[in-house]
């Protein structure tokens, strides 16, 4: 009798994916929570993770920094967990925990000894069902987050680099502000804002529960049903930005005055959203320009012309169209305009000449090495699985995405350079030293 119920439960609408390397099972609960399980018994630990599809791009002007601020508050407690007890439960059980917030999503993780799996599920389900935040918690974390902003941005050399690049590159899309938000908005956030935010975004139908490690998938599924199936599906409409940032709308240039000594040149180009075929071509192009000592920007600008301490271009892949972030930290006494010209030469070279077979093979070998190396921890695997489901709706990309890179041709790379690395499609920023700022 029990056995029949058991097999019904397990068979439900679960599908087994036979993947090449990373095996996993995935299914949806009735409330819309997507679950991914990966079994690996090499170490007696388990990563219990929840990814919510909410980041700074879901914020409203005047409340920037909300998603990240709220991430801090969700460690405060719940109906059944007293203030400050959340981390105690995990750490007393020999586990570790943390969370982070990006432009597109918020990710919570508990790394536990595998005999504490149920504790992790209880904690994460409490967070999803009925988190509780009091005024002391809000006021404390408000100051803590402001310190985080000072420590990571305001008090760091070139700390505003990404902020300036994003705000200059995006005029209408909410990528124009950083996940940390502005001091004014952090000061303005009210308890009512958090309640709205929680009701809208922290619902099972906006989350992925991804678990990897020393687990039995069947037992795990039953425990997940126990703790998560009673959480009601969200009733609110989940808003997502629909605004499209115009590209190729003319070059924008600006100078940012900083106290840092060396000039820094930023070139940011609009690129397609991650997961699109052209994105892979752009990413391979950036690898050609920047990965390893033999990469073109390093070889030319750093090694041969000796103009810079560092030079590279990196894909900042995002759910909506992101950026290629090219930058050079100039050597002392070098004119940033000369450095920018040297960068342009390398961009132009890819537009005008196909790369060699040898170079293409190098890029493919690098891609292969990176793919093999990245799945080395259960926590990393849990996060990758959740990413692939949340952004692309195809969890198995953890095994197959490599073929999308391997399919990129020399012509694709040239085409990507021509189409996206165009003057009209970029923002150029010079970060220049202002001695007046040292007199403060």
């Amino acid at each position, binding site marked *: 009798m029990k056995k029949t119920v058991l097999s019904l439960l397990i068979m439900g609408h679960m599908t087994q994916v036979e993947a090449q390397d990373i095996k996993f099972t995935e299914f949806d609960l009735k409330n819309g929570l997507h679950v991914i399980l990966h079994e690996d018994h090499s170490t007696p630990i388990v990563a219990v993770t929840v990814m919510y599809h909410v980041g700074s791009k879901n914020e409203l002007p005047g409340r920037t920094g909300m998603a990240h601020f709220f991430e801090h508050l969700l460690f405060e407690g719940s109906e059944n967990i007293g203030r400050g007890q959340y981390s105690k439960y995990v750490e007393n059980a020999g586990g570790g925990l943390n969370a982070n917030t990006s432009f597109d999503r918020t990710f919570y993780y508990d790394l536990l000894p595998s005999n504490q799996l*149920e504790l992790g599920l209880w904690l994460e389900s409490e967070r999803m069902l009925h988190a509780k935040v009091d005024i002391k918690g809000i006021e*404390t974390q408000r100051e803590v987050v402001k310190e985080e902003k000072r*420590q990571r941005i305001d008090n760091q050399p070139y700390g505003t680099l990404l902020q300036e690049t994003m705000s200059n590159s995006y005029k209408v899309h909410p990528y124009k502000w950083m996940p940390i938000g502005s001091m004014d908005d952090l000061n303005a956030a009210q308890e009512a804002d958090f309640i709205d935010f929680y009701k809208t975004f922290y619902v099972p139908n906006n989350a992925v529960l991804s678990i990897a490690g020393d687990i039995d998938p069947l037992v795990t599924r039953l425990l997940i049903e126990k703790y998560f199936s009673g959480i009601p599906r969200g009733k609110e409409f989940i808003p997502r930005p629909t605004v499209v940032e115009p590209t190729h709308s003319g070059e924008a240039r600006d100078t940012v005055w900083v106290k840092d000594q060396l000039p820094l040149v930023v070139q940011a180009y609009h690129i397609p959203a991650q997961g699109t075929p052209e994105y892979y071509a752009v990413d391979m192009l950036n690898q050609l320009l920047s990965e390893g000592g033999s990469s073109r920007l390093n070889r030319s600008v750093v090694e041969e012309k000796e103009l810079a301490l560092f030079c590279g271009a990196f894909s900042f892949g995002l759910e909506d169209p992101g950026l290629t972030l090219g930058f050079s930290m100039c050597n002392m006494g070098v004119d940033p305009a000369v450095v920018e010209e040297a960068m342009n030469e390398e961009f132009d070279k890819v537009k005008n000449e196909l790369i060699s077979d040898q170079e293409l093979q190098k890029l493919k*070998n690098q891609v292969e090495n990176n793919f093999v190396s990245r*799945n080395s921890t259960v926590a990393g695997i849990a996060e990758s699985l959740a990413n692939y489901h949340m952004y692309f709706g195809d969890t198995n990309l953890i095994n197959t995405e490599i073929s999308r890179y391997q399919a990129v041709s020399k012509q694709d790379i040239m085409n990507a350079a021509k189409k996206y690395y165009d003057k009209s499609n970029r923002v150029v920023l010079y970060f220049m030293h202002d001695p007046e700022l040292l007199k403060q």
Partner: protein
Amino acid sequence: MKKSFLYITLFASLFLAACSALQPVDRSKVPAAGPAPIIRIGEYQTFQLENGLKVIVVENHKLPRVSYQISLDVVPGLEGSKAGFVSMAGQLLKNGTATRSKAQIDESVDFIGANLGSSSRGVSGSCLKKHSSTLLEVMSDVLLNPSFPDDEIEKLRKQTLSGLASSQTDPNTISSRISDLSKYGSSHPYGEFETESSVKTITRDDLVRYYNTYFKPNVSYLVIVGDITPEEAKTQAEKYFGGWKRGNVSENKFKMPTIPAGNEVVFVPLPGAVQSVIDITYAIDLKPGTQEAITASVLNNILGGNSFQSRLIQNLREDKAYTYGAYSSISPDETVGSFSAGASVRNEVTDSAITQFLYEMDRLTKELIHDSTLTVVKNIMTGNFARSLESPQTVANFALNIEKYQLPKDYYETYLQKLNAVTADDLMKVAQKFIKPSNAYITVVGNKDVVGKLGRFAASGKVNLYNSDGSVFSDLKPVPDGVTANTVLGNYVEALGGAAKLSSIHSFEQEGNMAMGPMVLPVNIKAKEGGKFRMSVSMNGSPVMTTVCDGNKAKMESMGQASYPEGQELTQLRMQTDIKAELHYQDYGITPTLKGIGNIDGKEYYVVELLDSEGEVMSTDYFDISTSLRYKTVVVESADGNTSVNESVIHEYLVFDGIKMPSKVTINNGAMEMNTTKVIWNPKFEDKDFIVE
């Protein structure tokens, strides 16, 4: 047999889980843990090549990758005026060999998607297993035949100098440099760091000598981790590193740095900083692999380890919200270990945060750790240990430590037992030995505005100011040739009316008033050669404050309370009533020193420090370059650990019979104003006017 047992266990747990899943969840109950899993440490193999190279192999076939690490177990000597050459030599290994240019090395490593790095302590690389012979070919060439090409040296020098310039605004880099310099001192290799001038003096010979002295197989380890068998590892080790020639490497010994007798405060001003980077630090003698080191790490986890339960996080972040994170470390080391506790905090709470750090440190030495705290910290550390074993590199590090520190073979197998054996009494002993809230260097990198509040943490009451390169701080410009303290003071005397004119004055009487807000009180000063004076302030016709000095002793009466100024305070008073003081500083035991040219609101001033007979700074005077007149005097006083800064600014001079006297002086930004309205030169005074009762 074993298999069917597993099956039954699995079925039982499924059954139980199914039952509980069908019941309503009692969410108020914390789920019980299952039976504790067994923590297993992976295995490793060791062997030695004929040239003395010790090899450690950790076999792990989970991913088709292998990593190779050559690690030198040496303590390099002092670098002195050429600080930076050790690091530069290490970086240059991979920038050219006898047969490969840097471009060729980069190209071969990148082509196989591999990584290769070199440092002063060795070379390391990783790649897919199928490319391992290609990587090892380059890696062994880099290790055995580096050529230190001149053009690569100059390129790296240029980059290093640029890097130094860019680090001038990095508070964390500055903090770690200044902390190392403070706790280890400049005559210990751990206290050295490169500067612009040291990097400029490094020659190719220095680099080659470093390589020839320390890069020997008999003082090195080769650690191989990944998809490889011990047999394959042995073949590769012999093929690629067997030809490395052994040689004698002498051991460098250094004196153990001492801790300060009382707390010292070291401050590096960083213009525009919105946070203070605080580090409370000192050297300790704690060796790795000892039971004491395990006990110390338990203590550190309670204080400021990487957990939300630590006292520093709970106090400075969760309770007071001073910081995003506050941490501590107690690091064992064969040469010299270190204690460190710190955080980045907003400017306004810099002093409050230091108070809390010292409070938490002090508490460890006085309060026995509660059993429940001890249980929690052991759980945390057991969990950290278990999770660290996910990486095969951890096993390799364990093996390396066992070999390097000659630990028992089962050191890590029995680590959890040793951890569990630690008691509250053990922690108290270790705390009293290693936690020194009164013998620490408190280093702060931050905004100059916060420095005034830091003196009270120093035993001397004084803050030592440094530049980011470790030199003593000065924001002054150098003076032109020929300008000395004597010329500055001579011009000042000339501007007042001249030495001859001043020498003709033997006594004077000065009248004026003292204003504090709306209250204006008349002041009268009578002074006579030989340090005799009487100063009185009155209210409604009767004196409220009188100070008298007979040339030797003084008495101050205020509102019926008497005090007897002496020492530096008395000297200050006597000098204030001596208009010829600058003509005979030696009588006061004072040596004036010209420090440079300072800038106040766009105007330039000569800055002169007056040093007392013990060489301590008594006051700092600012002389206007255009008028030669004194503009400002700053007196820093410290008593009982409290420091006060008194600043007086002269806004106006008036001429009384050919001699200029300050006629309008404000003290401490206008808290008090002194005005002089009338001066009579050489009035007749009797000695009885200056009797001290």
